[in-house]
């Protein structure tokens, strides 16, 4: 990463978020669930940070923290060097202009009772622009994302999924944000529509010098947009590095599986993950992946692996990555029992 004097757009330092799950169980007692633990990364201005990982691994939690929809349990989150959880109301308002978001579900993201022009200009209005002026900017915003100007007067249900996602992007762009949080923005879309939206996102980034936090399941898609990639497993970052390197030569056994599966042309059944998913309410000791890791041994059950440099700029949290990379580690199968 470049050693710019200016602070990076985003810097997360030891970010942790635990949820208490109370009422989900009528008769149980509240138990903490760690959704994100000790997550640290930086996103330079104008770049994309891709976040991948299994369902429920805490990707959206990181996104929500960045959007200030949740407050962290520990750790700091700096945007342009400023801690976003220590802001005055005025600073917060300014911050709200700087950061916008697009979510996964194109059906749920738009108020079904609002017209397109009001949807895309709502952030402007929230930041004090008067209605006439704001709505005058609607056609321009719609054009920006490739929607015809006559769509201004339509309601969300009159748009297709891909078009809705465009609307959501137009709205996010309306206040000239510097940072866009994209939480699986294309997962719900058809292959062909997905391609449309992705090209649009890339084009916008280049045109407006945007910084992206991009969350996705599809590694090819992540790779298409991202400069840096973080891999999460059960709340922790297990691998972090330049997108190409991580996705071509993964260091962590979990990432290896992901990449192998995503390759897609491997014959059916060639790559199989064994073992059990860890229970978030009673996480295993040591390395969280050991219950499914083919290389697990006693060390893994005893100690939590630290993030270590695998290569320059490429961090991995695995006790055995050198041995595995060298092909020197034999597959022992997952460790299901406690050490």
């Amino acid at each position, binding site marked *: 990463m470049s050693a710019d004097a200016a602070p990076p757009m985003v810097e997360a330092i030891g970010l942790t978020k635990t949820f208490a799950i109370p009422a989900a169980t009528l008769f149980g007692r509240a138990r903490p669930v760690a959704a994100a633990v000790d997550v640290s990364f930086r996103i330079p201005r104008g770049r994309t940070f891709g976040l991948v990982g299994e369902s429920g691994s805490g990707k959206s939690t990181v996104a929500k923290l960045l959007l200030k929809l949740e407050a962290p349990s520990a750790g700091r989150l700096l945007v342009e060097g400023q801690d976003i959880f220590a802001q005055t109301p005025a600073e917060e308002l300014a911050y709200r202009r700087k950061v916008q978001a697009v979510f996964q579900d194109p059906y749920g993201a738009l108020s079904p009772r609002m017209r397109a022009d009001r949807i895309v200009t709502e952030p402007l209005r929230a930041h004090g622009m008067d209605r006439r002026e704001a709505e005058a900017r609607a056609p321009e915003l719609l054009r920006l994302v490739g929607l015809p100007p006559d769509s201004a007067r339509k309601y969300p249900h009159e748009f297709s999924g891909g078009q809705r996602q465009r609307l959501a992007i137009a709205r996010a762009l309306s206040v000239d944000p510097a940072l866009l949080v994209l939480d699986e923005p294309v997962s719900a879309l058809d292959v062909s529509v*997905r*391609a449309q939206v992705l090209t649009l996102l890339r084009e916008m980034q280049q045109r407006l010098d945007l910084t992206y936090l991009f969350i996705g399941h599809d590694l090819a898609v992540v790779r298409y947009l991202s400069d840096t990639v973080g891999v999460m497993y059960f709340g922790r970052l297990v691998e972090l590095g330049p997108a190409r390197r991580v996705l071509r030569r993964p260091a962590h056994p979990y990432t290896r599986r992901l990449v192998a599966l995503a390759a897609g042309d491997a014959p059916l059944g060639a790559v*199989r993950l064994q073992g059990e998913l860890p229970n978030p309410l009673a996480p295993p000791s040591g390395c969280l992946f050991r219950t499914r890791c083919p290389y697990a041994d006693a060390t893994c059950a005893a100690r939590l692996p630290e993030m270590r440099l695998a290569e320059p700029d490429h961090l991995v949290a695995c006790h055995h990555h050198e041995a595995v990379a060298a092909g020197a580690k034999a597959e022992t199968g997952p460790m299901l029992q406690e050490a």
Partner: protein
Amino acid sequence: MPHGEPLLAIRGLNVEFGLPARPVRAVADADLTLAPGEILGIAGESGSGKTTLCAAVMRTLPRTARVSGRVEFAGKELLSLPEREMARLRGRDLAMVLQNPMTSLDPLYTIGNQLEEVLRERRRGGGAGRLGSAVEVLRRVHLTAPELRLRQYPHQLSGGMRQRVLVGMATAAAPRLLIADEPTTALDASIQDEILILFRELRESAGTAVVIVTHDLSAIRRLSDRVVIMYAGRIVEEGPTVEVFRAPRHPYTQALLASLPRIEEEEVVLQPIPGQVPDLARLPPGCAFAARCPAAIPLCREERPRERTVGERHRVFCWRAGEGAA
């Protein structure tokens, strides 16, 4: 490739929704055959009628649907079968896995209860010999700790586990035909693979024919013998999987395959299909894809393309298919 008497033969199937004055033809003039033990993949744009087609075969369409045509299963015409007999076929000879695994199990009963219920029904149908116990069914779908699972409720299982339970139920009696509607969409890549492997095993062990509907083209490529591509309610291309993926003949199939992310010189390349899906209630007179087709000629907009055979069991509905790939 299995030959002989087809297991399933769909002839001129039409399914309409909405007001008769302004019908939505979710499936139009579909012709399709399936041999015993064959695996068929169906892909296509969202809303192109894939689910509707499957539901028509299972006769589980909502009452508002108007169905015409013929669906023959092992020589029986299904559409005119009394509901009683149809119910007897379901589950035993014809089974289906629905689109959404998260909600396809009754949340109020244990897995064991629901599985037993299915098994009881199968035994009554006379399939007793090959059934085995509930535990065995779960073991067959590679579920860990099956005894425990039987005592658990659906919400205590992950999506992948539920999906496997459903597949186990649907395949308990080794049906002759299994229809799986997007069985893997909601799943992790790793679990996705598990399910596909299961289908393969089922065909191998019991000779079950499988129809799999999915957006995931790589799943189709790896699993199925034959593939059907649908667009706007119509089958636009059908052929052996290898051949269609190698040399797609319909411009939509070509565009669909091209829109998958591709890696060229270390860069990921995307090629979206321009334009929008047409409104099913207001289809143009000619080819529905014409408006987005780079190879469209005036004829495409005026007249609906006829079927054209371009290889062994490979047919395509495109005026320009004969001229070689566009």
